[in-house]
Every structure is written in C-alpha cells, then in structure tokens.
C-alpha cells in the first residue's frame, strides 16, 4: 500500500500506481479547509534512505479533493483524514462517503502541526470522540494511524478500537530535527518535523508487534520499509498489510510491481500457499 503523505493528491497518479500492482492507496491527509502547509524546506533527505519532513499537512481540502476522486471507480483508496474537532471529521466523512472508496485512515499522529495529528492523538478522550464520530457517519472500514507520542501506542490503539475503529496503522513519523552546521540554522522552515525512512523501521516493527500481540484487530505496518524483506519483517511482527512511502523517493512508483514480484517469489520458495501464513509468526517465540 501507499502510505499517507506520499504522492497523494492526484487521481492520475493514483491510476499510475494502480497499474503498478499496488494493493491500496492512502491519500494525503485531508482537512476541511485547504491548507498550504509550511514554506520550504519541507522535506530534508538526511542520508541512508531517511528523511525529515514538515510539510505541514498541505492538502486541497475536502471539497476540491472529493472532486478529484469523483471519477474513481476501481482503485482501492483510503482517505486519510485530519482535523481538530469532531465536527470537522463528520463534515468530511459526509462528503466523502458517497465516493467509490475503500475507507478511511484517521491521522492522529502527525508530529509537526499544532492542534492536529499527534496533539489530538495524545489525548485519549479526543481520540475516543473523533473515532466515534467517524464511526457514526460511515459503514466503511476505519483505520487509525498511531505514532510514538506521549501515550503508549498499545493504549492508544485500544482506545481507537474500543471507539469503533476496525484497523490500526502503525506508525507515523517520529518528531525529529536537523540543523545545518555551516549556517548554524535549522533546515526545516518549521524547525521540527517527522523522521521517516530506514531509521525508524525497528521502532515500527516493535509497535506493530506490541499492538498485534495485545489487541484483536488487523494492523497495517508502516515506517521505513525499503525492501520486500522489510515487508516480510513487518508481517512477521503482526502486520496484515504494509505501507511504503519514503522509499518512493529513490525508486519511483515501479517499486510496487517489483516488491509484489519479489514477495511472490519468497512465498513460492518457502512453499507457502499464501503470504498470510507469516502474519504474526514472530509471536510464537
């Protein structure tokens, strides 16, 4: 699957990804009103396949984005939602729910925008209310995207599932910073952003492992996946599906097709009938 925040604003791009054998697409996080995000620099490659970004949840807003998706028929799209209040979430779901989409991913873990994302995710009562509100307005599957904030990730996942979410996506980027030593200045315009890419993979694997061990709901693994081997590792930790994002930077959309082929080869080589046989296999030990 395509992780939220990556390439996620254009139906033409979604069509191209679909032709690359993608399993599903999560859009950029959409808010009620359009958001311009922060000035550049918003994405900083820090080497070794890791990045720090503070894009600032830029998105065209609910109305323009529902027009963008209005012609979608067959592409399995989950719309990522971000907002500050229950009212905002219910307004968005009311607009989006008539579109041909798979479901929603609620972003409760963006680490660099005030009053949204992580600031909501760190408040269990707010999480409970928002998930309940979205649940009341749709029959489609809801995933809640959690991150590493001040509340234990398993606790947060439990609150989300108890409130009516069906799936947990783990994890979001981790709050991080980079400073240029020549100019002695923070590079990101927002100074602080979210770390993604290879550096966060072991943390993501740990979170998926702990959530899937303690909570009876499917988990989508996300964070630092750059190869088919990483997909396998997340699945062994308990992920039923895996999202990729940062790796698109060096590989482009063709990586979906390549990973799918490599995963099929692995399944064949191991003599399995279905890749689902490995989900959570690491819990045995």
């Amino acid at each position, binding site marked *: 699957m395509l992780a939220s925040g990556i390439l*996620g*604003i254009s139906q033409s791009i979604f069509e191209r990804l679909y032709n690359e054998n993608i399993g599903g697409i999560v859009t950029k996080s959409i808010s009620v009103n359009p958001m311009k995000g922060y000035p550049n620099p918003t994405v900083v490659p820090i080497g070794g396949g890791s990045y720090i970004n503070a894009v600032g949840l*830029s998105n065209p807003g609910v109305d323009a984005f529902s027009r963008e998706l209005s012609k979608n028929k067959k592409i399995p799209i989950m719309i990522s939602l971000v907002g500050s209040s229950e009212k905002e979430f219910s307004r968005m779901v009311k607009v989006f729910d008539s579109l041909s989409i798979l479901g929603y991913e609620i972003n409760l873990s963006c680490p660099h925008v005030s009053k949204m994302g992580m600031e909501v995710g760190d408040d269990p009562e707010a999480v409970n209310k928002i998930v309940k509100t979205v649940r009341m307005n749709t029959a489609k599957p809801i995933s809640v995207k959690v991150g590493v904030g001040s509340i234990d990730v398993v606790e947060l996942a439990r609150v989300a599932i108890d409130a009516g979410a069906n799936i947990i996506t783990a994890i979001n980027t981790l709050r991080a910073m980079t400073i240029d030593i020549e*100019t002695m200045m923070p590079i990101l315009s927002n100074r602080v952003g979210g770390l993604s890419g290879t550096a966060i993979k072991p943390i993501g694997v740990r979170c998926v492992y702990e959530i899937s061990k303690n909570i009876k709901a499917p988990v989508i693994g996300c964070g630092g996946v750059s190869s088919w081997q990483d997909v396998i590792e997340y699945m062994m930790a308990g992920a039923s599906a895996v999202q990729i994002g940062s790796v698109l*930077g060096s590989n482009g959309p063709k990586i979906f097709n390549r990973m799918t082929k490599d995963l099929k080869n692995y399944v064949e080589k191991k003599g399995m009938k279905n890749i689902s046989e490995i989900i959570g296999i690491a819990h045995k030990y």
Partner: protein
Amino acid sequence: MPTNIDNRRIVRIEQTIVETPTVKTLVFKDSLSHAAKPGQFLMIWIPRIEEIPMSVMINSKEGYAAVTIRKSGVGSTALFERKTGDLIGLRGPYGNSYTLKKTYKKILIVGGGTGLVPLLRLASYASRLKIQSTVIIGARTKGEVFFENITRKIIQDTDSSLTICTDDGSYGFRGTTVELMSKVLHENTFDCVFTCGPELMMRKVVDLSNENSIAVQASLERYMKCGIGICGSCCLDGSLVCQDGTVFSGRQLSKMLDFGISYRDKDGQRINYF
C-alpha cells in the same frame, strides 16, 4: 568532493551577474552542479526563507555552476537579493535531461526568458558534439533580452546561429518565438526541437513541432516541495516533473491533459493557466 546528490552542500556565491533589472545569475563552486546534464535542476536553499527548484546554469570555470533567477515569488526574490559572499544551500542535480541522439545533425532551440538556462547547457553540449544549432531567444522587449553574449560565445567557431525576437519589435525579429519558429521551419529542416520557457509558449512549440512531424523535447517547471518524487506537488497528469522530467517528449506531452492547461498550487488544488 560530494558524490551523493542528496547531500546538502553549502556554497558561497562568488559572483553575481545582473542580466536585466529583474534577472540575475549567481555563480558558485560545486562539482556536481558543474557536471549537471541539460534539463536537470537543483533544490536551492535560501536559509530560513525558502527552498526552490532551479535549473542549473552553465559556467565555463572548471567545477563551477550558476543559477539564473527572475524575481517573482518569496523564494526567487530572496535569492535574487543574495549578494556575492552570501551562503546558499543546494542538493541535486535531480531529474532527467534532454537527449541528444548521435544521429542528430541539426537541431532547433527555442527559449523564452530564464527557460534559456537548460538550453544553453544543451547548446554547449551540441557544440562539442558538432551538432548545428539554430537558437531562438524570445523576449517581450529589448530590455528583457539576456544571455545574448554567452549564447554567441557558445556557438562561436561553429556553423550554429542565433536569432533574437521581441514581441514589440524593439530588437531583432518582430514577433513571438513561435512566429519566428514557424518562419524558420519553412526554410530549414531539423532533427529535433528543444524548448524551455513559459508553459503556454512551450505548448505552442510542441504543437507546431508535432504538426510538422519533428521530434520535440520540452523541459517543464512545477511547484515542488521535495524534488525527489515524494510529495507529489509537481504532478503533470500521471507523471512527476521532478522524477520523470523535467524533460518530456512531444509524444508524451501531446497525451497530457495538464500540459499548458493547469498546475497544482501549494495546497495541491488544480489551477488553470487561463
């Protein structure tokens, strides 16, 4: 010497050249940029203000390169105001480039404004490969014409030629680049047309080339956040200008619904050119 294009280099501006009252060239030392291919771009960091994609301008000194800025938005105005001695950051060069086939003997280069930047790098490659270039430089009026001298220097001692046109006829041919191109096509044949400039001009250059069954390559510009295929801001139909471009062929462009029609603004909404 840096080898990874993603590594940010902080460089000192060693020379500033005033091209017109609103266009400046900033020269700096960076070996990766010096070796950039025509059509590739840098992400230029103006510390604590912006980061913007800029096509890489050639510089004759070994290991040096430049960027040529027209002041317009926040980032380009801030960059325009940088002085010799100031520090800027850069990463890249990113993107694909114009393709000069070995079989090419005569090419037509059509540039408008700062769109000349990748085309001059191309013209200098073509000169080295002994390909004959016919260069068209377009501007609205005489005061906005720049790069004439450097173009003449690139094509000196070759059988290439330069024609300048201005919309108001104050310098060179009176008319637009497309009108001049149309005239040139009546009198000559070319293996390929290369263009860069305002998108509506490029749309006409591409259409005219397609009508005349001449191969054409255009280098496009879009708003970018990342420059490396992650943010999706620079999408043009299903393509990304940063990763699949900046250069697209006439065949690709003629199938695109966005080319010459619309782009995405900072929040990702589709905006029409007119």
